[in-house]
């Protein structure tokens, strides 16, 4: 086998630049600490490494639990073709969240401390446990893809035996920590701007996580169909667009109700940065909602993709507002991330794309259907028998 030199493309150049900048920022982080690599301060202790890398990272990985629930618990089989990409996204997402945490924690060598030094009153403690357990669940949900690739059928059967409790556990853990990322901010009523501070933050985080999970699934299907030259599962994505429209409506309606109960609409009359950021966030969520109710939009791959991207950016804006911008006025500080904070974040995103592409190109992530149709008739019979025994 001859070693081929990689072709130079625009994306590869961008990737190389992002990696170089990220690695230089990493060096700053290691040798000059958080002070030398971030613009954080005593009055503004959390920046984009928390608000983006962790909070957005976890939200964007929500497709994993959403699709597992739809396909395996609600048994909506038609979504099966996009289940594996969603699990891969989620698994990668959580691994990258841990990478982000390693940058952000003052003592990353003590990442494991919450697992042994308990404080059940701490939301962060709960999130730490849920993320650890859920990443384990995701690795087991992803494992069959690896086993299938190498034709290891015996261990696949073992995993299959525990798959239902495993998937239920995964959905429960996700429910808990997706909402808990919102609960984190309930402790700062005097700091977080009232357009975002509400006792129902956990509910809002949960519902928006489901929305962005679906949006990310549409997003990655569209991209992978281009990257790997596959046919787009348009029928499936169209119906997913419908679900997304409904979830976005539910989210915006809850948000509206909550704001009216808290009497905060007057704040929108003020010409301040928070008002505009709030407007941007709502626009990015309401526009795709309105568009996705129209079947001609849902049936056009480009338009469907644009709606998904808007929804993704809407949720990202929301997380950044809650995690950084919404806290500035209350903390009395102005925070703009240092270049090295941005460089690390971009490097993590670039790594996410690159690893996804690498894995999707080498493992049966997208062609799951064909494999299953060919090889799993036996398994299905067994499954049916097993169910009959359980059901009696």
């Amino acid at each position: 086998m001859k070693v081929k030199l990689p072709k130079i493309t625009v994306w590869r150049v961008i990737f190389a630049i992002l990696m170089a900048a990220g690695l230089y920022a990493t060096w700053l982080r290691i040798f000059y600490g958080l002070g030398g690599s971030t613009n954080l301060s005593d009055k503004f202790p959390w920046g984009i490494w928390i608000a983006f890398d962790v909070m957005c990272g976890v939200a964007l990985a929500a497709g994993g639990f959403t699709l597992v629930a739809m396909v395996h618990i609600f048994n909506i089989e038609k979504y099966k073709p996009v289940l594996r990409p969603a699990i891969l996204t989620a698994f990668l997402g959580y691994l990258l969240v841990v990478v982000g945490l390693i940058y952000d924690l003052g003592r990353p060598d003590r990442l494991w401390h919450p697992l042994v030094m308990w404080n059940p009153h701490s939301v962060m403690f709960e999130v730490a446990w849920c993320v650890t357990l859920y990443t384990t669940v995701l690795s087991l949900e992803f494992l069959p893809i690896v086993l299938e690739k190498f034709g290891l059928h015996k261990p696949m059967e073992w995993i299959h035996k525990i798959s239902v409790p495993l998937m239920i556990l995964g959905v429960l853990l996700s429910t808990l920590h997706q909402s808990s990322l919102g609960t984190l901010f309930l402790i700062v009523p005097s700091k977080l701007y009232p357009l975002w501070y509400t006792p129902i933050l956990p509910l809002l985080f949960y519902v928006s996580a489901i929305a962005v999970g679906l949006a990310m699934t549409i997003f990655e299907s569209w991209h992978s169909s281009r990257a790997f030259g596959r046919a787009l599962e348009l029928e499936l994505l169209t119906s997913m667009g419908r679900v997304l429209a409904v979830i976005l409506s539910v989210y915006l309606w809850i948000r509206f109700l909550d704001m009216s109960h808290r009497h905060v609409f007057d704040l929108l009359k003020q010409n301040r940065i928070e008002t505009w950021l709030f407007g941007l966030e709502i626009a990015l969520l309401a526009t795709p909602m309105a568009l996705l109710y129209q079947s001609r939009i849902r049936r056009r791959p480009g338009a469907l993709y644009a709606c998904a991207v808007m929804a993704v950016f809407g949720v990202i804006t929301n997380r950044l507002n809650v995690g950084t911008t919404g806290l500035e006025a209350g903390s009395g500080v102005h925070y703009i991330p240092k270049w090295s904070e941005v460089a690390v974040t971009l490097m993590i995103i670039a790594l996410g794309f690159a690893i996804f592409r690498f894995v999707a190109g080498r493992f049966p992530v997208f062609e799951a259907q064909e494999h299953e149709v060919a090889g799993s008739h036996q398994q299905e019979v067994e499954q049916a028998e097993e169910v009959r025994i359980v059901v009696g």
Partner: protein
Amino acid sequence: MSRAILYDSTLCIGCKACETACASRWGLPYDDKIAAEERISAHKLTAIETHGDKFSRRLCMNCAQPACASVCPVGAIRKTTLGPVVYDAAKCMGCRYCMQACPFQVPSYEWSSRLPRMRKCDMCYERQSHGQLTACAEACPVGATRNGDRDDLVREAQKRIADNPSGYYPKIYGISEAGGTSVLYLSAVPFEQIGLRTNVPQAALPETTWRVLELVPDIVSTGTVLLGGIWWITNRRAEVAKAEGKTGKGRHK
């Protein structure tokens, strides 16, 4: 009994003896340059602030129900029965949630260190547990900082206001702020004029997150039954459909 500090801004002469005593109690460097810094930081755990002709003093409020202790994922922060809120740097993983959660913006971080710690006043827990006064109270030449039993100090503060109603703003800061604190303030002017945050909730903060966290067992148990039930129903339906020969549901592209 719970120990507390009473700081009377009307008595303070801004001599910074408390700062010097605090620095030497923690073994922190102290010179003219540090003395001129009018804010608390990782190398200065108490600071005298000048507000016109008034002085104010910043230090950890050592809340009765501290937000910092409730949010710490590793339990590194603890409210002692004696009163001080203490911190165990050996447990801390540096998530800085305590800093985010503190309504008084007290905890500081050793930002430039490679092995950073959170730093804050712990109301001289060591000294007080050996029956000594806090270093700042011992050093204060005019009695502007007093250290003692919280109930006694509250009575003392009320007496000062009653004895001299024209000299004091008629409130004690710290009685109900964040559910009550172990550091109490008296002032001649409204508290925001001496740099204290007056938008702090008047109830204890840990309740805000606990209200949600305490639902976790209910969510897990109800969720298990619900999801398990849904799976059982939908899976049964699929089995029945299969048995009736309605296979081939959308498996092809």
